[in-house]
């Protein structure tokens, strides 16, 4: 019985002795902090922080002092834990969600030609500039929906729609949309102008009945708060300010302003 225990223990010692020599001989310096920071991150490896996954972001945070609030899925609580671990201060990033600034669904917006090709927005844009009559509108081939890691985007009647509660603001849909219709806006903002067409009114009216015709009604109604300004013939919301005057939703002639607070 004793020999068994002795034999096994000396095998154990032999192995550990060999490993100790090897560890000393091939030693690689690595900062233990990186492992610590990595454990604080959610580990979704979504790349929203711009690094190739959480381990990479941890290395950047420790070695070259990267921003602490870049982790979108983690949001403010990850930023807080990072600050507290590294003893730094960083203003907590406000929770953001993506939104598609177009509501030209197939029943209101016209098509220009019968498209015969790949059902992918980037590919469709290359063939004749996309088959939607409006040169700014959403083509509706769902590339953003297919690329969204949390399936937060749904194609409704030919236009993409983001479900804010699922969106982790990783920005993948933004880079993939050939017409740059998707913007990151503060989650709590409810009033949105769902159009990105810079064309003059008559041209917009010819291609889409619910496109912004640049009548500046909403700008005049929200004059005091200056929350809406004109960019050419397109009304744009300044998301740093809160839009109070909800009357613009009814007053807007083409009805392209929506207010998501009620539903």
């Amino acid at each position: 019985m004793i020999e068994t225990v002795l034999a096994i223990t000396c095998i154990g010692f032999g192995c550990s002795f060999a490993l100790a020599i090897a560890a000393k001989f091939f030693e690689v310096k690595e900062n233990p902090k990186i492992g610590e920071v990595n454990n604080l991150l959610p580990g979704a490896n979504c790349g929203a922080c711009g690094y190739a996954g959480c381990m990479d972001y941890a290395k950047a945070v420790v070695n070259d002092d990267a921003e602490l609030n870049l982790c979108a899925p983690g949001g403010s609580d990850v930023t807080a834990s990072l600050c507290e671990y590294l003893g730094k201060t960083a203003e907590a990033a406000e929770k953001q969600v993506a939104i598609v600034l177009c509501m030209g669904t197939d029943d209101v917006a016209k098509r220009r030609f019968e498209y015969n090709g790949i059902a992918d927005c980037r590919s469709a844009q290359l063939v004749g500039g996309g088959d939607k009559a409006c040169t700014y509108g959403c083509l509706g081939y769902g590339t953003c929906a297919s690329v969204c890691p949390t399936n937060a985007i749904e194609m409704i009647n030919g236009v993409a729609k983001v479900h804010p509660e699922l969106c982790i603001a990783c920005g993948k849909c933004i880079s993939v949309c050939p017409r740059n219709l998707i913007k990151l806006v503060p989650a709590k903002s409810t009033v949105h102008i769902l159009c990105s067409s810079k064309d003059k009114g008559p041209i917009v009216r010819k291609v889409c009945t619910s496109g912004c015709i640049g009548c500046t009604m909403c700008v005049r109604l929200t004059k005091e708060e200056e929350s809406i300004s004109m960019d050419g013939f397109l009304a744009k919301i300044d998301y740093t300010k809160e839009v109070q005057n909800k009357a613009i939703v009814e007053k807007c002639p083409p009805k392209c302003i929506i207010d998501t607070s009620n539903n």
Partner: protein
Amino acid sequence: MNILKAKFKIHGGVHPKYRKELARNEETKRLPLPKILRISTTQHLGAPSKPVVKKGDYVKKYQLLAEAAGFISAPVHSPAAGTIKDIVAGTGATGTPISEIILETNTTSDEDLVGVFPTNDWNTLSPETILNRVREAGVVGAGGAGFPTYVKLSPPPGKEIQTLIINGAECEPYLTADYRLMMEHPKCLVEGIQIICKVLNVQDAHIAIEDNKPEAIELLSKYIKDNGIENIKIATLPTFYPQGAEKQQIFAVTGKQVPSGGLPSEVGVLVENTGTTVAIYNAVVKDLPFIERTTTVSGYGIENPSNVIAPLGTPYQDLIDFCGGAKDGVKKIISGGPMMGFAQATTETTTTKTTSGLLLLTAKEISQYESAPCISCGRCIAACPMNLMPAELSQFCEAEDFESAAANRVMDCMECGCCAFSCPAHRPLVQHFRTAKAFLRAQPKK
């Protein structure tokens, strides 16, 4: 004997139904001056030219409308006298936004033109003045790319051009504009070639013509023999598509392979289109700017297909009406050839310096793409003149794995269409590669 058979045969290539007989035998007709011309400022490869006229100006014929913006660019001249109605945004033949100069022509007086000083003997001109005339005339490659010709004719220092090839292959089906040019203006073509030889001080030049144009070969060789010109020979090429592609033609005539990503000048060869050569002749000898070009209006959807000389900026609808109007059942309108041309949504688009053809095709002439899976039958690989693997590349693009596509040299694809032409599953291969190339071009250089 100044006719030699091209010795080298490239890999791949396909045989589409050429249907050239539709618009081959009649003379080229001239379109009466349309009332409205919408002249695009993106008539060439490179930066769009900047308009020098504004709304309401009255311009004479040949007057400069837009000047070149930058080194790779070309000026645009007014094809007729008239008043500038407006400068608006429009869509080009490829669907990309362009800005158009709308010119209301006064069709009454056609003589109201800017002074023109033809020279009777171009030999006296030095290469520099020839190059300047070519630049000022706004001559661009008429083959389809529209690369400014004077940039091409001044090769980078240290690169010596040994052989000049005049591309008379015109391998795209339906198109016969170059053929008619060779038949009707051999003198302008041959002298144009000699002018280029002078500029590049090249000793010998070849006119590459496919052997499905025997009359052109015979006529040109007789013209060359009668005028005792030694340094121009005719290279007959077997007829297949894409015989007219630059890299393939260089290989077919000289056996040299242009290195991947390199320019033909690196192997000491320069290829010039027949249409461009005649434009050079007009610019240098007759001092005429590039204001009109021959376009083949063809296809089974047009009443009487023919070759038409039309001023730049002519709306397609005018060309169609001039050729007897469209038959019913036209499914597709294409600017350029059926293999590399761009399908049009409307007939409002206008002609530019690179519009080699306008095709009205009925359902039985065109094909429909389907999203069928690739059965790796290898026909696209056998057809690819660049010896790539379209089957594998398209599967990478479908899986949006553009890095592997780049590793398999998708950037070297010249979008000639041979693969999609021969794919039994009707897969949109060229569109896959264009998406991949657009994505890779947008990538910041790492």
